[in-house]
């Protein structure tokens, strides 16, 4: 491990915050679980320190312990000190700590949707920290709120004062959160995954904003993230965490130029890569739609007739050939998931859907049921898509049972085969989902789809909830399975890197409509529409620097 102190040429002043040997344990009925072990780092004014790691690495717990926001007394610190302004934050009492929270150290959370109180308008929420820590009159506070909103780039701040959180977009909410954190001009800003919940284009804007605010106000930023692309662009120093421990600590340039630890190297090189296998020219079309349309009624008149609609999907037409992957990309709310659900008749839709040379859109649920085994889906959330009360064998075997395939022994055999195909140990089939990690669960979900030997699998953001390194493995697995079984995929994702690695053709969706479609090569190298270009710019903006050679 290299310490920051060795490269003293970058050290202009003494650190503003020192974390020394910080450990965090969680007390549980079954015993103590150690979440963070012996973490030390320094934070300097006007510099950004990024803490990176995969989920469960203890990075958020570290950040939360700085302001002592963990669920005490369930959480305990067996060792460590956090020195700020000559005081040890771990030893301060609650009133002293309140003087620091929100005033000297500000914090931004991951989820802007739930971090703002939905019942208060934004002026009240921002002014709250001002009134708490400074004795301002309401008029002065309002002036300051408008100043802050201008600072974080909210257009027409005077008109926005009385807006409620639900009237703002995700990016605007995160801007309001930043305004709240910066209201008292803190010395330190802790940003815990500030952009994870945002669309790529918005992500870039928010990070640029943070960068420019740092230049204006000179605060130190502690950036918690799992995204190395962001780190590479915005951090000055990096701490890499793994299983609660600091693996490597270096300046950003040094870390990316020559990572010292094996773990860091795998992390840096874990971008999904490769491209899909080409498909034969004469491959038959397995699934196609013609002017597919999904409208949700918004308002109804007196007689229950809808008078206004949300047009979630508008006139979408495409063809999917055997062995082909069709990527559907777009930001949240673009209707891409809706298409997937409509194809599986989990939502009502209009327009023609042809599956295996048969019109299926007018079939009712019962008539469609025999076809379901040929058309499967894998959902985004590997935690939500497996019933917690069923063992893995039951989950995978359920489809076989429903379609009456094979005897009990044959079904068992096919479950074992499916588990082998997704590279899981078949002996684990009697365990329950909670005993598996996110990546393993997603493999189980794939096995559930695969066991029915489908023709088409709709993959609805199958990698979004997974860590980058696990994503690569899943992408690899999907590609191998496609080649082996001549599967066709509809791959829905907002993550363009993953789509690029897997898709033959790509549809770009915006507000329910196809903006652009074409082969993957064409879309990624020469996008025609400005929207596509913006999307690709934002997504690949972080990966511009050359890859590290190992």
């Amino acid at each position: 491990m290299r310490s920051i102190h060795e490269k003293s040429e970058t050290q202009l002043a003494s650190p503003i915050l020192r974390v020394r040997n910080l450990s965090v344990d969680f007390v549980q009925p079954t015993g103590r679980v150690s979440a963070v072990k012996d973490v030390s780092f320094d934070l300097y004014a006007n510099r950004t320190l990024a803490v990176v790691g995969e989920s469960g690495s203890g990075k958020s717990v570290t950040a939360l312990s700085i302001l002592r926001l963990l669920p005490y007394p369930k959480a305990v610190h067996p060792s460590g000190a956090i020195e700020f302004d000559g005081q040890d934050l771990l030893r301060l009492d609650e009133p002293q700590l309140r003087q620091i929270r929100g005033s000297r150290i500000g914090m931004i959370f991951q989820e802007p949707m739930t971090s703002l109180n939905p019942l208060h308008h934004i002026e009240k929420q921002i002014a709250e920290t001002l009134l708490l820590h400074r004795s301002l009159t309401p008029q002065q506070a309002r002036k300051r709120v408008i100043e802050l909103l201008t600072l974080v780039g909210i257009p027409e701040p005077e008109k926005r004062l009385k807006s409620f959180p639900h009237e703002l977009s995700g990016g605007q909410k995160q801007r309001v959160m930043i305004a709240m954190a910066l209201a008292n001009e803190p010395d330190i800003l802790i940003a815990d995954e500030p952009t994870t919940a945002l669309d790529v284009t918005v992500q870039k804007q928010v990070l640029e904003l943070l960068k420019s605010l740092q230049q204006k106000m000179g605060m130190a930023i502690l950036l918690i993230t799992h995204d190395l692309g962001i780190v590479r662009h915005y951090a000055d120093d990096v701490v890499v965490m793994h299983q609660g421990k600091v693996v490597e600590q270096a300046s950003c340039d040094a870390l990316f130029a020559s990572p010292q630890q094996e773990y860091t190297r795998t992390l840096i090189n874990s971008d999904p890569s490769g491209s899909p296998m080409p498909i034969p020219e004469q491959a038959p079309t397995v699934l196609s739609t013609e002017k597919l349309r999904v409208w949700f009624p918004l308002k109804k008149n007196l007689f229950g007739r809808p008078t206004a609609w949300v047009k979630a999907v508008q006139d979408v037409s495409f063809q999917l050939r055997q062995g082909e992957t069709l990527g559907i990309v777009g930001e949240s709310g673009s209707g891409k998931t809706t298409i997937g659900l409509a194809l599986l008749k989990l939502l009502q839709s209009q327009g023609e859907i042809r599956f295996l040379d048969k019109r299926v859109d007018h079939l009712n649920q019962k008539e469609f049921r025999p076809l379901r085994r040929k058309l499967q889906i894998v959902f985004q959330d590997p935690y939500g898509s497996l019933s917690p009360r069923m063992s893995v064998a039951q989950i995978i075997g359920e489809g076989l049972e429903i379609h009456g395939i094979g005897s009990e022994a044959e079904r068992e055999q096919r479950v074992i085969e499916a588990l082998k195909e997704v590279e899981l140990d078949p002996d684990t089939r009697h365990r329950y989902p909670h005993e598996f990690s996110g990546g393993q669960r997603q493999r189980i979900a794939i096995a559930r789809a695969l066991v029915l030997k489908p023709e088409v699998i709709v993959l609805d953001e199958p990698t979004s909830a997974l860590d980058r390194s696990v994503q690569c493995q899943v992408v690899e697995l999907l590609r191998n399975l496609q080649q082996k079984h001549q599967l066709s995929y509809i791959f829905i994702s907002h993550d363009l890197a993953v789509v690029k690695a897997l898709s033959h053709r790509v549809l770009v969706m915006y507000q329910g409509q196809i903006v652009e479609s074409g082969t993957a090569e064409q879309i990624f190298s020469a996008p025609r529409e400005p929207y596509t270009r913006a999307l690709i710019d934002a997504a690949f903006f972080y990966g511009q620097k050359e890859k590290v050679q190992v």
Partner: protein
Amino acid sequence: MRQRLSRMLASPINQRRLQNFRANKRGYWSFWIFLVLFILSLGAELIANDNPILVSYQGKLYYPMFKTYPETEFGGFLPTETSFRDPFIIEEIESDGWIIWPLIRYHYDTINYDLQVPAPAPPSRENLLGTDDQGRDVLARLIYGFRISVLFGLVLTIASSIVGVIVGALQGFYGGRIDLYGQRFIEVWSGLPVLYLLIILSSFVQPNFWWLLGIMLLFSWMALVDVVRAEFLRARNFEYVRAARALGASNGLIMFRHMLPNAMVATLTFMPFILTGAITTLTSLDFLGFGLPLGSPSLGELIAQAKANLHAPWLGISVFITLSLMLTLLVFIGEAVRDAFDPRKV
């Protein structure tokens, strides 16, 4: 099927629930005490009866509890049913055999004609908790009353849970119009004055156990509909429910296998409290005189007697202790069940 059931019961979630249930010491012990009391009261005939369990007379064995014998069998004069309360018969048998008596020599409707004082008689060696105003043993009536109350409560709870879960499940699963009309119907139905209806109905028919059960069931099934409906509305959008549908599972299978387990948590948590409610309702109806038929051993009727005979405090005190013990045990059990299913602990 049995294998699947045992595997389901052994699932880690259920094991953790069992642990949580055990961790609540008060509720866990209440559960065992209640179970023992309930099983004992199920065999009330063996504990409190005016017929002996076993009689040996002239080398022959008799089972008077299960079979009626004419008096002539035991040296009596009339071919009528033997009354084992008759001192003459007892003397006759014991001269050439033996008798095994139950713990308490009174059935709930046995009238003690040998009272030294006018009924209600205070506690004595013969009647441990005294007699009521018709000379019947209070302890025997309490044992039988406990049994009938708990049985009534259990049957009502289970029946109304089944109806409630089905209605709630259908409303929550299908939503839309079914849900709308169902909810409006329940609102109207729950607005009906239950007590008056019971009083009116009990003037049409002579209410027995099953009549009362049926009438109360008409109104008690609504307790669970709202929770179950809410659970189903929530579960409808779960991804694993969607996944099951994508696999081609039928509506019935989805409801039964994937959604019902969620709703069962709420249902089981509510059940002990519905049970206490049912017992209390039966007791209060009996107290008002609209409950079980005359002469049945019921706790409510005993309370009514206690109210009419304030000079006989043993009536009120013993029924009060029985009722409060029973309800307290049930509430403690209910708390433990609630702990066991607490999602924050699971």
